[in-house]
C-alpha cells in the first residue's frame, strides 16, 4: 500500500477505562486498524460494545491503555492541540441546542484553530464557513437559530462545522442516532460524497489539500446503511475488531458474527438482516410476483412456514378478480375471501388464538 495514503494507523491499541483501585477495565486489546484518504469508514457494533470509547481514543479525548493511534505516523499525543485540531475534527452525540446561536456562527466556530486569540474572522474564514454550509446544502439556513431547525438539519450544520475546521480526518459518533430513515440515508450519503471530494478550494497547496479527499470515520448501528455507503467497515465483535470492505465481510461470513446469540441472521443474497423465526405451522401459498413475495413475508411474520403450491395443507390462493386482488383461504372444505393482507392476517390471528384456547 502507498505509505503516504495511510493517514491513520492504529497499532496494538488497548482501550477501556483505567481505574486506580481495581484492575483496568479493558474493552479491547490489540486493536489494529487503518484509515486512508478518500475513505468513508463505518465503525459498526452492538450498543455499549465500546464504539464511542474507540472514537474518543482516536481523537485524543481519552488516553489509550496501551498501544498508539498514529496520524501520518505520529502519535496523537505528539501533536500540539491546535495542530491536531487542524488535522482531526469531531462530531459527538451531544445535541447542541443553544438558544440564539445562529447556524452560521456555529459553523464559523469551526475556524477556531485557524483564527487569532480574539477569534477574528478574516474574509478567508468567512468564505470557508459559507462554502462549508453550501457543501451540506444548508446555505439558506445561515441566519436561523440552531434550536429552531430539525435534528437532520442540525446534524448537517454540525458536519458543516467540521468542514469549516478544514481537517483531513472527520470523526463522527453516531451521526444518525436521532434521525428518521430518509435522513439517516441522506446524512451517510453526504459523508460518502464528502469523503470523495477535494478539500476546500484555494489557500492550500495541492499536496496539503490532498486530491484524494478526506478520511471520514463514523460509528453506527445501522448496518444496512453502512454496507451501502461505507468504503470500509470496522466491525466490532465481542473480542476483536475486524476491518474490510463491507462486501468482503459479507463474503467471508464475518458480518454474520455480529448477531450471534441473537434472533437475527444475515441474508447474504439480499444483503440485509432478518429475524430468525420459529415457525409453528405450515401453510400453502399460490400466487405470482410481488403479491406472492409480500404475502409470504406477512405469513412468515405471523409465524407460518410457507410452502409454495402445497394444496394438501391449509393454503392461500392469490387471485385477481375485476382488477382487484383477493386472497382466498382454503382450510379443508371451508373457503373465505379477503380483500387485503391485513384482513387475512386478522383472521389467521383469531384462528390461532382459538386453537390455543381449545388446547
Amino acid at each position, binding site marked *: 500500500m502507498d505509505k503516504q495514503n495511510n493517514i491513520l494507523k492504529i497499532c496494538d491499541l488497548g482501550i477501556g477505562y483505567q481505574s486506580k483501585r481495581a484492575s483496568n477495565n479493558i474493552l479491547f486489546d490489540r486493536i489494529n486498524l487503518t484509515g486512508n484518504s478518500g475513505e468513508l469508514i463505518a465503525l459498526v457494533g452492538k450498543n455499549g460494545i465500546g464504539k464511542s470509547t474507540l472514537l474518543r481514543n482516536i481523537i485524543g479525548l481519552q488516553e489509550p491503555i496501551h498501544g498508539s493511534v498514529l496520524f501520518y505516523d505520529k502519535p496523537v499525543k505528539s501533536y500540539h492541540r491546535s495542530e491536531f*485540531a487542524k488535522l482531526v475534527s469531531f462530531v*459527538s452525540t*451531544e445535541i447542541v441546542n*443553544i438558544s440564539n446561536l*445562529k447556524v452560521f456562527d456555529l459553523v464559523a466556530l469551526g475556524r477556531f484553530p485557524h483564527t487569532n486569540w480574539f477569534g477574528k474572522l478574516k474574509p478567508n474564514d468567512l468564505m470557508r464557513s459559507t462554502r462549508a454550509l453550501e457543501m451540506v446544502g444548508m446555505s439558506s439556513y445561515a441566519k436561523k437559530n440552531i*434550536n429552531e431547525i430539525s435534528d437532520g438539519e442540525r446534524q448537517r450544520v454540525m458536519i458543516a462545522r467540521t468542514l469549516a475546521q478544514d481537517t483531513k480526518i472527520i470523526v463522527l459518533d453516531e451521526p444518525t442516532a436521532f434521525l428518521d430513515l430518509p435522513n439517516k440515508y441522506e446524512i451517510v450519503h453526504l459523508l460518502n460524497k464528502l469523503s470523495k471530494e477535494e478539500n476546500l478550494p484555494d489557500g492550500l497547496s495541492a499536496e496539503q489539500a490532498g486530491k484524494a479527499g478526506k478520511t471520514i470515520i463514523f460509528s453506527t448501528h445501522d448496518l444496512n446503511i453502512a454496507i451501502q455507503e461505507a468504503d470500509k467497515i470496522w466491525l466490532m465483535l465481542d473480542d476483536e475488531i475486524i476491518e474490510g470492505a463491507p462486501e468482503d465481510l459479507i463474503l467471508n461470513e464475518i458480518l454474520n458474527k455480529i448477531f450471534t446469540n441473537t434472533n437475527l441472521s444475515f441474508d447474504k443474497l439480499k444483503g440485509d438482516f432478518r429475524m430468525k423465526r420459529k415457525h409453528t405451522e405450515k401453510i400453502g401459498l399460490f400466487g405470482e410476483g410481488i403479491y406472492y413475495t409480500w404475502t409470504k413475508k406477512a405469513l412468515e411474520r405471523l409465524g407460518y412456514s410457507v410452502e409454495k403450491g402445497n394444496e394438501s395443507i391449509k393454503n392461500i390462493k392469490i387471485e385477481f378478480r375485476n382488477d382487484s386482488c383477493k386472497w382466498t383461504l382454503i382450510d379443508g372444505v371451508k373457503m373465505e375471501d379477503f380483500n387485503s393482507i391485513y384482513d387475512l392476517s386478522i383472521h389467521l390471528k383469531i384462528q390461532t388464538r382459538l386453537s390455543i384456547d381449545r388446547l
Partner: protein
Amino acid sequence: MLQKKHIILIWLLLSFILIVLFITDVFLGSVNIPVKEVLKVLFTGETNHPEYLTIIYKFRIPKALTALFAGFALSVSGLQMQTVFKNPLAGPYVLGISAGASLGVAILVMGVSTFTVVSQFGVLGNWMVVIAAWLGSGLILFLILAISVRVKDIMTILILGIMFGSATSAIVNILQYFSNESMLKAFIVWTMGSLGGVSSAQLKVLIPSVVIGLLITFLSLKLLNAMLVGENYAKSMGLNIRLSRFLVFFSTSLLAGSVTAFCGPIGFIGIAVPHIARMVFKTANHKTLLPGSMIFGGIILLLSDIISQLPGQERTLPINSITALVGIPVVIWIIIRNQKLTSVS
C-alpha cells in the same frame, strides 16, 4: 435577524439611558440637592454650596460608580458562568459564589478581627476584606470546578452549588451566633447589600479589581464562544480547557468576589441580566453579549439603586431586596419559557 442599523440604534439608546440613570442616581439621596446644582457640580465642578460639593463627591458619585461597576461585574460573571456551566440558571448568587465571599468576609469580620480594626487599616483593610471575599468565592468555585470534572450532569452541579451556598450560609450563621452585638450588626447590614456604604477609598480597590476582571473576560471571548458548544467540542477544536476554565473562574471570582466584599451579596443581577442581553441582541456570541450584559447590568443596578432611595424619603431600602424583585420575574420567565432547561443559556 437584527440589522446593523438597529443594533447601533439600540447601543445609542442604551448608552443614553445609562447616562441619564447615572445622573439621576447622583441627584438622588437623603439630602435634597436641586437638579441645577447637581449638573453644575458634575459639569463645572463649582457651586456656591460647599456642602453640596462634599455630598456629591464623597457620597453620591462613589455610590453611582459603585452601582455602575457592580452592575458590570455581576452581570459579566453571570454571563461567564452560564456559558461554562451550560446552564441558564447559573450565576454567582445561585451557585453560592456570593455566599462563599460572605463566608470569607464573615470570618474576617467576626472571626479574626472586628470591623473597626479592619477599617483602621484604611486601604489595606479594604484590601483585606476584598481578598477574604476573593478567597471565599474562589473556594466555592474551586469546589464546584473539582466536582464538575467528575460529575458531568449540569443539574447535579447546580444543586451541589446550591448546597455549598447553604452550607456556607450555615457556617456564617454559626459565626454570627458567637459574635458580639456590634460585629453582628455590622455584618448583617453588610449582608443586606449596600451601594452607598462604599467609600472612595474602597472604590480605589473595587474599580481596579472589576476592570482587571473585565479585561480577562475580554481576552477570553474566543474561549467563551467555543465553550458554548460544550467541552468535548471545544477540545476537539483545539481549546485549552484548563487554561480557559482557569481564566473564567479567576475573573468570575475577581468580579463577583470584589462586589460582594464591598456591597454585600447582591442577588439576581448575575442570573437575569445576561438573559436580557440575549433577548435584546438575539445572539449567543460573547463579542456582543459581553458589552451587552455590561450595559444592561449597569442600567439595572443604577435603576435598582434609584428605586431603593425611595425618592422623597430619607430612608433607603436594602439593594438586595430591590434586585431580587427586579430579577426574579426574569428568572421565572426563563424557567417557564424553557421548561426542559436543556436549552442552554
